[in-house]
């Protein structure tokens, strides 16, 4: 008996539909696991970047402590020692002056040590938050005395994830380091704008600027861009020769 055309069409259509169904399920499983692998790679890369960031912050902290010990504390304590060594106990008035001078210098040293204790390391950055850490960084720049920092915060601060905070801080720290080292600037502005779903950090200087076409960026700049990408942030650099450089980092807060 020949099958009626309707039943043949039904069976053919059903077969096509089931083949499509099986294909959809196979493609789904394949896509799921490829995306999972890609995500796992991203997680590994993020972990590596975070570790690098922590190490760099640690290195920066050690360098800052070492410079402070050498340039400030060492000098102040040497001077205090000199004052005490030259104090003549047979001349009580002069001796009293020298001791008073030494007391002042030791007081300065204690103040410097307290300041040094506030130097930013990874735990303190996550504890004080992004704005607190950047404010301290601005104070440190002011202390160097080479350029005038301006720090502004607008909007209601939204706490960022600890890892994001560390990476953002490190990007800004690298940007500030570049300003201090290469920009010949007299002013550096740091601005943090909090909005509903994003945080925008701007670092602007009035220095010499440079010509960037994206291809010949130094490793510092590449690192900043890569790190921004890893936390899902947008990195925008605008530089005009003799007018300065502006870096805008837009971080999604969700």
């Amino acid at each position, binding site marked *: 008996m020949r099958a009626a055309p309707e039943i043949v069409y*039904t069976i053919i259509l059903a077969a096509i539909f089931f083949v499509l169904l099986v294909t959809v399920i196979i493609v789904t499983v394949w*896509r799921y*696991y490829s995306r999972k692998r890609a995500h796992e790679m991203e997680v590994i890369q993020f972990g590596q970047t975070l570790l690098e960031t922590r190490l760099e912050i640690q290195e920066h902290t050690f360098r800052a402590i070492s410079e402070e010990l050498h340039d400030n504390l060492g000098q102040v304590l040497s001077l205090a020692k000199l004052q005490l060594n030259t104090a003549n106990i047979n001349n009580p008035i002069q001796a009293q002056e020298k001791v008073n001078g030494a007391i002042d210098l030791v007081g300065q040293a204690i103040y410097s040590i307290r300041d040094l204790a506030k130097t930013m390391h990874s735990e303190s950055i996550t504890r004080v938050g992004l704005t607190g850490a950047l404010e301290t960084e601005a104070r440190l720049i002011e202390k160097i005395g080479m350029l005038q920092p301006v720090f502004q915060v607008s909007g209601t601060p939204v706490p960022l994830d600890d890892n994001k905070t560390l990476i953002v801080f490190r990007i800004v720290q690298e940007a500030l380091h570049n300003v201090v080292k290469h920009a010949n600037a007299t002013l550096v502005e740091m601005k943090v704008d909090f909005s509903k779903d994003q945080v925008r950090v701007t670092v602007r200087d009035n220095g010499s600027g440079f010509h960037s076409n994206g291809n010949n960026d130094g490793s510092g700049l590449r690192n900043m861009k890569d790190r921004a990408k890893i936390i899902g942030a947008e990195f925008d650099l605008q530089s005009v020769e003799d007018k300065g450089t502006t870096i805008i980092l837009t971080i999604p807060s969700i």
Partner: protein
Amino acid sequence: MGVTLGVELWADWCHSEQQPFLWLYNVFVIIEYSLLCWYFIGVTTRAVIRRFIGWSIPVFAVISIVVSFQLYNFRDFPGQNINIEGMLITVLCVSVLFNLDSRLYKNITRHPDFWICCGWLVFYAGTFFSNGLLTYLMNQHLDYAQKVFEILNRPLNLILYSCLIVGLICALLRK
């Protein structure tokens, strides 16, 4: 599932009281589609797809009401409405399956959306087949039509509800 059970019990009660009950399915098909869309909007991350799903609810509701009036006058079983719903749900399931969030579960078989979408896909694949076969059998062998429909429909429902239950268990295990 609760709404489905409620409608089935209501229809059964109407049937036993010899009251018309097929109008219930004409209304239920819109409610079912809306609830499924609501679920799919919740699990879809892409804004474009979410918008598409959102807009498809009123569009389907209007089409379904027109078809029910024109073809069935709210008195017969809404076969065409279910076919349209099936096609839309199939598209939505494929889209959800292709965009499953792989970060949440180590294994795809632990993903509730995988089971839920697979269940609906298998169900509608079988429904299209059984509807086509039923049309042919009704014309040729009316006696067998009902029997064949039951033979095909029962396992399809079993597969659908088993998948939905597995999906529910997966979702509960994650919590």
